[in-house]
């Protein structure tokens, strides 16, 4: 707006005071005249909000409306009209020499970790990591931002430093590079506390000894643990994410952000097509597919379990879908035993089950519209005329509508150790698949 020559005043609530300032700076207007109301606005009555309008700006302590009018009318200072480029400094290329303890503390105190011990990225260790790829250390491989900020760029060496810190072995490096090349950060800057997940396919799962059997998603194998953790460190150090109040705004946070949800698909015990093959890769290719969304939840609470000797997993999965948001998709993780049972029920392909689940998981338009997420994310798209949201907002309240626009919004993968036919459901959306082989 300012670029268009129209004086403007952004109005935010007090909780966003730091964010609004640092954000404006990153966009090149360090002196923007932001005004603030008390927090929150949501859930307040019109009378309460009028009191906000007639009251003081809680940041400046001056009457809010005076702040706003001054913001639009007080002449600009020299700083306000400055143009040019401003460099952002991230410190020297190396730290030390210092003791390992001293360096451990330095990395921790400077926000370069997830607050857990790291392997100190000495030149030797980074060199060893770089041997895990044929790519040149100086090759610039991508850009990452933790939200709607200017993205930071990085090269192979900078990715290696973070891979060392997370505890990766050099053989894992191509997977980490593939993730980094996607430019997707595992820490978003929304007030929602997002979760992130990756599905790994191909022979590399066995080469790296990834765990896809008992405890597949838990702390039971180094590649699963370290690769997942590296993604978060990439988000912090390469994408400048994860600074609470600045580039991280999730009100309550998400425990899965430590290591992200790493799923090596159990291709061996699954009668279904592996996920990367569904995405058009060959079975022998190594691929990492990235997801973002809300959380992952277990299927135990589902109704229609069929109780005795006849478990109906299609019904159960559909029942769990009822408390997911349509803003994100569904990533269903099935133990091989669950899949065997589903195949016996007639779902001999993932596509058949996707189709059934999509058709049979519906709700009324009234329930659909009665959701905070739908209001924030879908309603504006409906206003813009986007389908199917426009129809979903204009149809009668009692119309049954699906949870997602297409069967493809439901993703099925296999992981687990066959100790019990369980399943879990992530409210997560597929973003992209990246070849790992390209980064070998």
């Amino acid at each position: 707006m300012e670029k268009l020559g129209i004086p403007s005043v952004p109005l935010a609530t007090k909780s966003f005071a730091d964010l609004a300032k640092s954000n404006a700076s990153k966009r090149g207007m360090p002196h923007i005249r932001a005004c603030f109301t008390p927090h929150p606005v949501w859930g307040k009555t019109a009378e309460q909000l009028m009191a906000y309008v007639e009251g003081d700006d809680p940041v400046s302590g001056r009457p809010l409306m005076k702040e706003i009018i001054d913001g639009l009318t007080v002449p600009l200072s020299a700083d306000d009209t400055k143009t040019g480029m401003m460099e952002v400094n991230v410190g020297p290329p190396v730290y030390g020499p210092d003791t390992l303890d001293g360096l451990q503390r330095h990395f921790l105190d400077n926000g370069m970790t997830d607050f857990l011990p790291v392997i100190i990225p000495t030149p030797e260790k980074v060199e060893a990591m770089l041997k895990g790829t044929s790519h040149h250390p100086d090759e610039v491989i991508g850009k990452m931002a933790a939200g709607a900020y200017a993205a930071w760029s990085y090269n192979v060496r900078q990715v290696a430093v973070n891979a060392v810190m997370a505890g990766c072995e050099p053989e894992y490096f191509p997977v980490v590079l593939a993730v980094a090349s996607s430019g997707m950060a595992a820490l978003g800057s929304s007030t929602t506390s997002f979760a992130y997940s990756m599905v790994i396919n191909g022979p590399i799962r066995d080469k790296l000894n990834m765990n896809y059997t008992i405890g597949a998603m838990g702390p039971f194998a180094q590649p699963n643990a370290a690769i997942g953790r590296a993604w978060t460190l990439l988000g912090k150090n390469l994408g400048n994410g994860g600074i609470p109040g600045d580039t991280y705004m999730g009100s309550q946070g998400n425990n899965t952000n430590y290591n992200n949800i790493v799923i090596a698909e159990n291709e061996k015990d699954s009668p279904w097509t592996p996920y990367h093959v569904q995405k058009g890769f060959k079975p022998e290719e190594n691929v990492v597919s990235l997801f973002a969304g809300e959380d992952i939840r277990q299927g135990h609470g589902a109704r229609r379990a069929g109780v005795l000797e006849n478990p109906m997993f299609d019904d159960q999965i559909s029942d769990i879908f009822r408390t997911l948001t349509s803003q994100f998709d569904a990533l269903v993780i099935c133990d091989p035993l669950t899949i065997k049972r589903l195949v016996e029920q007639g779902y001999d392909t993932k596509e058949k089950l996707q189709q059934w689940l999509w058709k049979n998981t519906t709700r009324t338009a009234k329930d659909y519209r009665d959701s905070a997420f739908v209001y924030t994310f879908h309603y504006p798209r409906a206003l813009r005329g986007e389908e199917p949201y426009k129809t979903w907002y204009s149809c009668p309240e009692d119309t049954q509508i699906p949870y997602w626009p297409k069967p493809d919004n439901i993703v099925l993968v296999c992981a687990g150790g066959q100790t019990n036919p369980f399943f879990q459901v992530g409210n997560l959306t597929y973003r992209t698949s990246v070849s790992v082989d390209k980064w070998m």
Partner: protein
Amino acid sequence: MGIPSAPIVTKAFKDLAILNAAKRGMPHERICFTQHPVWGKTPDELHAYIEGQDPVSNKPFMKEVVDALTVPLSDDEKKSGMVTVSVGPPTFTDTAENLQDFYLNNGYTDFLPVILPTEEKVDAMLKGTTHHPDEVVGKMAAGAYPPWSYTVRQVAASAVMAGCRPEYFPILLAIASTGIASLFSSTNSFAFSMIVNGPIRDKLEFNYGIGSLGPFAQANATIGRAWTLMSKNLGNGGIPGDTYLGSVGNNLNYNNVVIAENEEASPWDPFHVQRGFKKEDNVVSLFRGLGVVPGQVARGSSANENVQFDYQLSDLFSTFTGFFGALVIADPLVAVRLKEQGYETKEKLIDWLYKNTTQTVKDYKSRNYAYLFDYPRALRGDEPWASWYKMPDDAVIPHFPHASDFNIVVTGGQTNAYPQAANMSYGVSASIDKWM
């Protein structure tokens, strides 16, 4: 008991069954194996299992069963006495790099880098408490195994490894003293959580503001992680196929869900005060269950400006198991709004949620966990399950058996009025001050 017995186990549990019998003192128990799985098979298929071979011994299955009951015992099988289990030497010496690998390869870690527990570092950790290093703190087991015991010093080693500072140590001792492991040997993939209350939250700079459940503070990160390392090292948990059997696993097991309550921004009594502690007491309360889900996805979150968090939470609970409780994790904005709606206390909200979160008996009986966990209790006559199983299909019953299955904690940075909720049950609260 003096009665010969033949346990039948499916092939998937072979290693587990043998190890388990050994831990109970019968290293030679005669276990017969069938194909896996049994669940979902037809009578004809099961008949074929029985007529077929034991997939482990490759001998006819029923011959194995009959032999197990009738072939005379060998000398080994008659043996009694005590066997000691060794965990290796008290210290290891090598380069830092080799030791990092050694700890990882020997299952002492969560497969992520640790601070190596040198004697100097362990001694520094021990300065975090007045308790004697040799004092036995408690016993822990990852399931129905004989528990291992541990001293203050042994707890300190895991605390160092996780990256804790000495001032965090009393919290770890409090957790260790409960004997609850954060890795459990069920085929379910359980999750664990802790609530920290009292002035120690500020003293240790716990994060209970923006991103409180995420990787944004050393105290939250390392204390949560230390619980899992203690469960592995002190409780012998987390060995897949032996003491860990969760089929699919749980990402929350890395650091557990550490919740420092935002007591300052909450309009309600803090959790430890609800449990009978004083406000100035420092307390850690432990939970176990399935996981954490976000609340803003549920219905009742309202497309207009009149958000109804009570309905929203209740809707969210409809896919929870009633076997575990419901832990509401409310951002202070949510709590303040609920208070404005008339829930002056946590207890009032719990009362509403308990009464208004219901299901039909038909739906209840169709739930997986009901058959697995509740039906056997009903058989034994335990209430309310015994009554629920006798009611007509269309009777409406509470989703959770008791109002005490609900708990509420307030945490978060007030950037948005979002609640989260965990399908988790309260276990126990332990005083941290006792371990200072």
